[in-house]
């Protein structure tokens, strides 16, 4: 046995990860200190310079006017007539069904995106093949196209006059004016989100971790499921959340291909549009509130959850 040479000095094995000094930061935000003599001692009085006040109020103002106020206005409008009309607007069967349908299909879309987005991200990062860079820049295309155009495009593409449409019709498959169509539209519109959030995580992934798994006897599939996938889960979740919110709110593309049959294929945003057209902004806002609140809660919950698990995205 070794002598007890470790003594005391060496008990300090614990060198924990150093907390980087984010609390105190100097770029644009460090509060310069005022030193004040009081009680015959130097006291520190943190103050904020006019410059910082200006920056902060600019930012807060921007956020307030352009983001918070419109969102607050939705709430104000929804409750403008009090609780009862708000409640009635929601419990109207058609409104309720539209909300349910939208939430349901948004969830389906999110799941689909989680799968195909993750796969695409992996292929785009890990595999070298012809056209990879082109595909990589095509990913954001759905962002750039006017959503109404996207809808029209899908309508043309899947309609009975197109090759694809007629071919599908021969098999008795219709991809228009049903829930499948809505999901197709949602998937198209939200295509970039998961890919774009997962990509950097895969790029950063430490190859050694994967190799460690092989050295421990794990197969490729096992390694993928147990090591790689969990590492990109925060990205999938973040991208999934954005997908979910965006799918909830999509209007332009869906209104053209969904069929809009109230209670069957009408999504919430189309319902909202109808209410606006009918001069019922309160009803429209009420439905919006439900969707907004839902996605706000989901966003917050997931953030809290990740924080608790110590994952920082």
């Amino acid at each position, binding site marked *: 046995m070794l002598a007890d040479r470790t003594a005391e000095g060496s008990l300090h094995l614990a060198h924990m990860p150093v907390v980087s000094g984010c609390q105190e930061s100097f770029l644009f935000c460090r509060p310069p200190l005022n030193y004040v003599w009081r009680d015959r001692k130097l006291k520190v009085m943190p103050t904020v310079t006019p410059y910082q006040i200006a920056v902060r109020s600019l930012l807060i103002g921007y956020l307030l006017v352009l983001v918070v106020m419109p969102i607050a206005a939705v709430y104000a409008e929804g409750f403008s007539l009090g609780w009862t009309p708000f409640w009635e607007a929601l419990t109207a069967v058609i409104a309720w069904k539209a909300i349910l349908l939208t939430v349901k299909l948004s969830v389906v879309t999110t799941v689909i995106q989680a799968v195909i987005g993750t796969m695409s991200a992996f292929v785009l990062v890990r595999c070298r093949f012809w056209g990879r860079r082109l595909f990589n820049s095509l990913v954001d295309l759905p962002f750039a196209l006017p959503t109404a155009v996207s809808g029209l495009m899908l309508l043309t593409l899947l309609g009975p006059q197109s090759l694809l449409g007629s071919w599908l019709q021969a098999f008795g498959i219709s991809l228009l004016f049903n829930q499948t169509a809505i999901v197709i539209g949602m998937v198209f519109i939200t295509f970039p989100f998961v890919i774009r959030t997962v990509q950097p995580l895969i790029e950063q992934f430490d190859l050694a971790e994967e190799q460690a798994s092989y050295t421990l006897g794990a197969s490729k599939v096992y390694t993928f499921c147990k090591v790689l996938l969990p590492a990109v889960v925060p990205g999938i979740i973040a991208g999934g959340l954005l997908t979910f919110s965006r799918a909830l709110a999509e209007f332009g593309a869906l209104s053209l291909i969904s069929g809009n*049959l109230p209670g069957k294929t009408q999504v919430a945003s189309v319902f909202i549009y109808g209410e606006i*057209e009918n001069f019922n902004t309160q009803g429209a806002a009420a439905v919006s509130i439900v969707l907004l609140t839902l996605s706000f809660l989901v966003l917050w919950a997931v953030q809290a959850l990740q924080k608790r698990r110590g994952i920082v995205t």
Partner: protein
Amino acid sequence: SFTEASPDSTPASDASSRSAETVSLTIGGYSTIKEEFEAIFPLFQKQWKEKTGQTVEFKQSYQASGAQAQNIINGFEADIAALSLEGDIDKIAKAGLITHEWKEAPHGGMITGSIVALGVRAGNPKAIEDWADLTKPGIEVLLPNPKTSGGAKWDVNAIYGAGLKQSAEAGQPDPAAAKKMLSRIYQNVKTLDKSGEESMATFDKGVGDVIITYENELIDRIKSGKNYEEVVPPYTIAIENPAVVVDAYVEKHGTREVAEAFLDFLWSAEAQRIFAESGFRSVDPEIAKTYANQYKQPASLFDTNYLGGWDKVNKELYGNGGIWDQIVAGNQ
């Protein structure tokens, strides 16, 4: 330029605009009327120039009828509102922007007329002749959503009215029978697009066997070479589309004179002929006669008054929990 969205928005410009070289007129129209208006503008500009030496500059916006009415109420300063539904004009009036009795104008303030008709594919393969044919199983019907489209209200009114008429043949007009027919047609609806134009666009993509729409839309398409046929059911409704000067904004812009002149011009033979050319039924009986052979006449044409007027229709048919809601709710 677009940066001065409404150059005459300041009161100071009131006086100056009268003597100015150019006067600008803002048109808030519903989507269908765009082409016809664009054909009429040059004619009016020419006439006004000759008369006053002023150049008229048109600013135009076309949206779904309800949306346009809302925009005008919310501050879109249109001098002239040309909408699909009387009701939409009434809403503007209710907001206090129209103060004169607009229905006292010529032709009750209506500038165009039409009827609700059925569009079918070339050769009418599904043999659609009447509303009842739309209830057959397997028929795919296209209809815009009356909740989002002004035009669709005419369509639904037509079905409902036809239902009443048919039951009246057998005795009393029976709201229940009318509702049942509407409901059965609704069951065959493939897609409820949010506007008449979108519905037409969907039909153009090859979707659906039959579309319920304005006669003029169909005539226009067929003229431009589409392989459709128009079917006019025995009972259908007469459509009337109003146009009106928005008092609040013409006062503000100081454009009342030219706005009223333009409105009058819309009722002139010249303008009415242009409407008729593109398939509308003219409100001017003379012109209507000249173009008569362009239209198929239904056995019985009724108007909104047959259904009790727009107020009643809006309440009973489209109001909260109204017949339309019941049908939609009952069909889930």
